[in-house]
């Protein structure tokens, strides 16, 4: 239903003009985003911003799957968490540089995504979501029991280390620029994936899978590759977060984390370019600034979720885009 009303917004008379694959409006929004990334640390606490950016990467990775392929994973915490644990372990125990730690975390999350995705993609809709959830719960149990994760304590005192072996990331501002760079890289990579020949097939699958099959595409293979890419990027987000905070814990693999990333994407705007980032910002800011209200944060989150589903189906960015009659 939401899809039907979306179609009536922009009516292009000719082919849309694009700048690096972004529409004009998206390009303006992109410039605003870059400006915000540069200016923000001078006004806001860098650690808060880094947390926000890590979740923004996570939500963008999740959106790649739900927004552009139409797959609702309910176990993305598993990839986020494993990325975090592996990166933390690599940095602390093996003494690897931060960029290598994150890459190893991401690769393992990707391998895990390949196995889980291969199992889950055979089913659709709610069954797909339930299988991803069940597998993620197994990972939670593994992280609780495995010796290297430190059980309830997690992996603590993870050093941020030296970028490329010589730039110390211990100062928050240096770490901020690093995290911002990782975010921009992930953001642009996702944009490229969406606007690639591969992305075109993904959109076709989202729109009408049987038709895509009838055109000769092995749709399961495309969905699996998208799943692996999404899991890998979720691993990047998790790895980066564990280095920012110097800790990897069970919170990151808990199922509620899978719910949170879904919430961020929905609040921001499913299938929009900037939505997941805005959604992540809203949720993280709420958790931060409303922290003194304790358990009420969850209640407020629930109310926002209900409001979104009932009144703002397109999410914040989706609704703004609809008002301005542009795609954002």
């Amino acid at each position: 239903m939401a899809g039907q009303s979306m179609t009536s917004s922009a009516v292009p008379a000719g082919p849309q003009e694009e700048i690096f694959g972004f529409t004009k409006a998206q390009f303006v929004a992109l410039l605003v985003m870059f400006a915000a990334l540069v200016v923000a640390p001078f006004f806001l606490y860098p650690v808060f911003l880094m947390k926000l950016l890590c979740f923004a990467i996570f939500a963008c990775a999740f959106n790649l799957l739900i927004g552009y392929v139409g797959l609702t994973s309910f176990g993305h915490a598993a990839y986020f968490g494993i990325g975090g644990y592996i990166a933390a372990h690599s940095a602390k125990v093996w003494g690897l540089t931060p960029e290598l730690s994150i890459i190893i975390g991401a690769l393992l999350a990707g391998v895990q995504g390949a196995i889980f995705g291969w199992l889950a993609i055979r089913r659709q809709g709610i069954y797909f979501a339930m299988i991803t959830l069940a597998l993620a719960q197994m990972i939670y149990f593994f992280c609780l029991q495995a010796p290297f994760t430190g059980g309830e304590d997690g992996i603590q005192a993870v050093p941020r280390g030296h970028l490329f072996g010589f730039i110390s990331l211990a100062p928050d501002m240096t770490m901020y620029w690093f995290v911002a760079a990782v975010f921009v890289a992930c953001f642009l990579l996702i944009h490229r994936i969406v606007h690639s020949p591969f992305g075109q097939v993904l959109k076709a699958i989202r729109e009408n899978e049987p038709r895509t099959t009838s055109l000769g595409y092995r749709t399961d293979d495309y969905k699996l590759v998208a799943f692996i890419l999404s899991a890998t990027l979720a691993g990047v987000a998790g790895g980066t977060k564990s280095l920012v905070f110097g800790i990897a814990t069970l919170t990151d693999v808990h199922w509620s984390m899978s719910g949170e990333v879904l919430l961020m994407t929905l609040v921001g705007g499913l299938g929009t370019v900037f939505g997941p980032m805005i959604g992540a910002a809203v949720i993280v800011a709420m958790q931060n600034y409303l922290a003194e209200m304790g358990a009420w944060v969850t209640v407020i989150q629930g109310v926002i979720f209900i409001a979104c589903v009932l009144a703002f189906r397109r999410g914040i960015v989706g609704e703004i885009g609809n008002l301005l009659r542009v795609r954002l």
Partner: protein
Amino acid sequence: MVRVSDTILETEGLTKEFRGFVAVSDVNLSVRRGTIHGLIGPNGAGKTTCFNMLTKFLPPTRGAIRYDGRDITGMKAAEVARLGLVRSFQISAVFPHLTVLENVRVALQRARGGSFDFWRSDSVLRKFDARAEELLADVGLTEWMHLTAGELPYGRKRALEIATTLALDPVMMLLDEPTAGMAHDDVDRVVALVKRVSVGRTILLVEHNLRVVQGLCDTITVLARGSVLAEGDYAAVSRNPDVVAAYLGTDASTEAEPAHG
């Protein structure tokens, strides 16, 4: 039209049972190359089930399907499509949020083989634009090329679907009720279009509107209650008392009337 006696698609004892209910029973179908073959029957006759088995969207309970001399009974839908046996859908199957041009391009993109290159810009797909525009001109959709497909009226969606199917240059097209739910002038337009694109191809058409098959099909197979009731050209089939009874036995007023009236 030159009649080649060579068979392109053939079924042998094709049967589909759903938990004991026999939807299609022992159907032996033989479609000659280069013809337009109609598969008709009243509601619930098993047309769509039969169609879905032929295109591998449903596995048959028993029986074999041969396409171009090759047994395709155990193949997957995407593989069959790659052999040139391409289907359409009863409910118009466009990609609603892609533009009309992009819809056709997704099919043309198949020529690249797999499209797993997620690191490359989609500007590489522009080389298919010219061919896509040609195909769209062919079905009269040029002026709507940059519109989102979901905004097209129903009849034009069917035309877009045919253009998309044609983009694969299929050896054989299977059309599932191409005129279902259409107004009269739209029906005529689609019938003319099917006739035009049938040149050099084989078409198997599932229809339940007799008026459509009358002007179009070289051979007609009538299904009723899952089995073949009659086969032949329109004149022979429409005179067959079993066929008349089968149609009258259901809702003859809406289905058979245009043909006999």
